[in-house]
């Protein structure tokens, strides 16, 4: 690979989404280190305290520091949901492309299976996965990715089908290229735009699912927490206008909306 092509590749990575993702990942990694308190520590005798000098985002329903909780929650939400989304979408996209390329029996079997999985309520699947393998971070990530894989599969299969029909894929097949090459180099690069948009939406869903899992008692183990759970556990603060509930909800919105807009901007259709 030439230097020129390397620099071109580097330049091809979209700036805005790249920077944004980097920012959140960085925050996820170093955020907890910046936290002023321990995540489980009760720091105030006042619950749902408003913004103050000591507690920039006030206190939560137990009197813990919201900023600390928020930094930790952001960290686990970003890392877990990113991992689950990536896993789900990688699997879904890859299988979708295989199905589109191979068609026939492979496609039928995969599609039937995925349809079956997607039609089982996600709540049930999650409960069972956790019940069977215990509640740990890897199990959570796997369960979440399994739940979202069929959706990603469905989308990317449709996309891949339309790409696979195009002549350059035919050309590669005529050359005798292996399925792996065709899928990775010929099909995948031509569906990145829509796939990215799909990834963005699925990220939103996984943030939501994570908080629902925590609510059912199969989510992250305390004192770890996630943004959705933070919002939920402090929901009562809503009536007092407490930052404890507003801050995590806003963070979710900024995180997911920003990511989606960035991914969208990447594929603004010309003209």
């Amino acid at each position, binding site marked *: 690979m030439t230097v020129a092509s390397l620099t071109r590749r580097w330049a091809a990575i979209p700036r805005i989404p790249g920077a944004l993702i980097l920012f959140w990942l960085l925050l996820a990694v170093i955020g907890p280190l910046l936290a002023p308190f*321990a995540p*489980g*520590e*009760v720091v105030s*005798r*006042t*619950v*749902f*305290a*408003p913004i103050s000098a000591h507690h920039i985002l*006030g206190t939560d*329903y*137990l*009197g813990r520091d919201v900023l600390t909780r928020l930094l930790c929650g952001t960290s686990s939400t970003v890392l877990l949901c990113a991992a689950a989304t990536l896993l789900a979408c990688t699997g879904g996209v890859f299988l979708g492309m295989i199905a589109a390329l191979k068609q026939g029996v492979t496609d039928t079997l995969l599609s039937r299976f995925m349809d079956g999985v997607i039609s089982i309520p996600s709540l049930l699947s999650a*409960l069972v996965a*956790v*019940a069977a393998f215990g*509640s740990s971070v890897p199990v959570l990530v796997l369960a979440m990715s399994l739940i979202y894989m069929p959706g990603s599969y469905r989308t990317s299969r449709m996309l891949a089908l339309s790409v696979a029909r195009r002549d350059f894929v035919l050309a590669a097949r005529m050359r005798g290229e292996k399925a792996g090459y065709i899928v990775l180099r010929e099909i995948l690069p031509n569906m990145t735009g829509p796939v990215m948009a799909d990834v963005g939406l699925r990220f939103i869903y996984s943030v939501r699912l994570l908080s629902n899992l925590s609510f*059912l*008692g*199969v989510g992250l*183990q*305390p*004192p770890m927490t996630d943004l959705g759970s933070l919002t939920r556990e402090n*929901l*009562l*603060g*809503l*009536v*007092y*206008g*407490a930052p404890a509930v507003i801050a995590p909800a806003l963070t979710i919105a900024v995180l997911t909306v920003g990511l989606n807009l960035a991914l969208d901007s990447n594929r603004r259709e010309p003209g």
Partner: protein
Amino acid sequence: MLSRRDMMKQGALLVAAGGAVLRSCPVRAASPVRGGHVRVASTTGSLSDTLDPARQSMVTDYIRGAMFYDGLVMLDETQVPRPALAERIDSDDFRTWTLRLRSGVQFHDGATLTSADVVYSLLRHLDPLVASQVRFQAAAMRSVRADGPLTVIIELYEPNISFPSVLGMSNFAIIRDGTKNFATANGTGPFRCAAFQPGIRSLAVRSPDFWKTDGAWMDSIEVISISDDMARHNALLSGDVDIITEVNPRLVALLRRRDMGVMESPTGTYTDFAIRQDIGPGKNADFIQAMKCLFNRDQIADSVWLGFCRLGNDQPLPPEDRYYNHDLPQTTFDPERAKWLLRKSGFLNQTLPPLICSPAANASVDIAVLLQNEASRIGLRLDVRRMPADGYWSQSWMHFPLGFGNINASVSADMTFAVAFASAAPWNESHWRSPRFDQLLVLSRREADEEKRKAIYHEMQTLIHNESGLCIPNFITSLDGYHRRIRGLHPYQGGHLMGNNFSRFIWVDDEAASRQSESAPA
């Protein structure tokens, strides 16, 4: 927003004010008014909702049961059994109890109450297929037989002076002989069941044949269950329901600010931390002592209960109980001592089993996190493992070396000790075995002298406090919210909403409500 101190102060004032209103109002509303409809929202409700008294285990079921059924006795505000369907309960040896039933009591289907109904109602708890919640308690009965149409003789295996309290458990409510189908309720209670949809709602309408002339003032009562905390409070605030159970301590200030009543009922309900003494680190007494010292009870009271609780002293009787041992030294938060004990016993640097907690055990997750945080300050690493709410009681509770539980207020001190602390007790959470304690339990049940029994109970508390692996940081104060138009509510030790019996006492005073809304700022 609001400091706990403020909240408590405010709460106290309003309770005083509310009480004053209740006391000063008799001029106008001394005699309760008949009629009206109220809606009650309780917490739990699911398709497991049942009208079978034997199976009741959730607050909504208890509330419903208390509307449709009567017990042989009924517990008053201080848990003293008072006559209900049984006019008299007598025993010479506390082993054989003779019950004289009230005559002329009618079931909702028109049948008259007889001793056969009572025999059936009591004995069915022994059948495992009934899946009774009180099978353990019922197992104390050697025989139940009718002696004529209105007399029932119950013979126990062992004497028990507190037996009448047992009959006050709502699970022992009296149903019609032979009842197997609980699609609707056929009891002798003040209300008959007009609609029952598990998990959705039930509608109770006043029974014209109710044997008691005073009480049961309402025409109809609808009970729904809203498990979502905020939604339940919102339903009260918006006027869609009149009464809610289990007000979240954090919302007391809001309710009171918006002129809703919040009734505080001190109860013996507690959330405990159980260290099993038969396996794991709990075999070491120092470890147990250390953990007891690690509970920052004041902080838990403030953070978790916002002050709506009383201090616990690692024994199960709440301070207001008449048998409470005031001489027992209070276990206090002492991390240094905990550290010293742990170092001494060698647990400080060990990997300990996780703390098992669950939303099923009230606030146990929060308490576990606070405990975990205190532990980390002295260098002790504790993992918290939160379990799903469903299946917790059967799958997790009492199965792990370190875990949380939640025990509701009991009908008597005797029941508390027998169910949760005796060596053979089904809910012996810490798997504590004390021959002395078992012996004292037997002694206390034969002891007719109140003072002597009190002394025995004090010693039993001391034993639990010193030896058992159970940490009871606080007793929970039940909080119920109500609209000001609802009258007749006052605290019972039995738990929220007058030990679930509110339906028999409340009445509606719409004038009071309108007076208030006039005077209330817009």
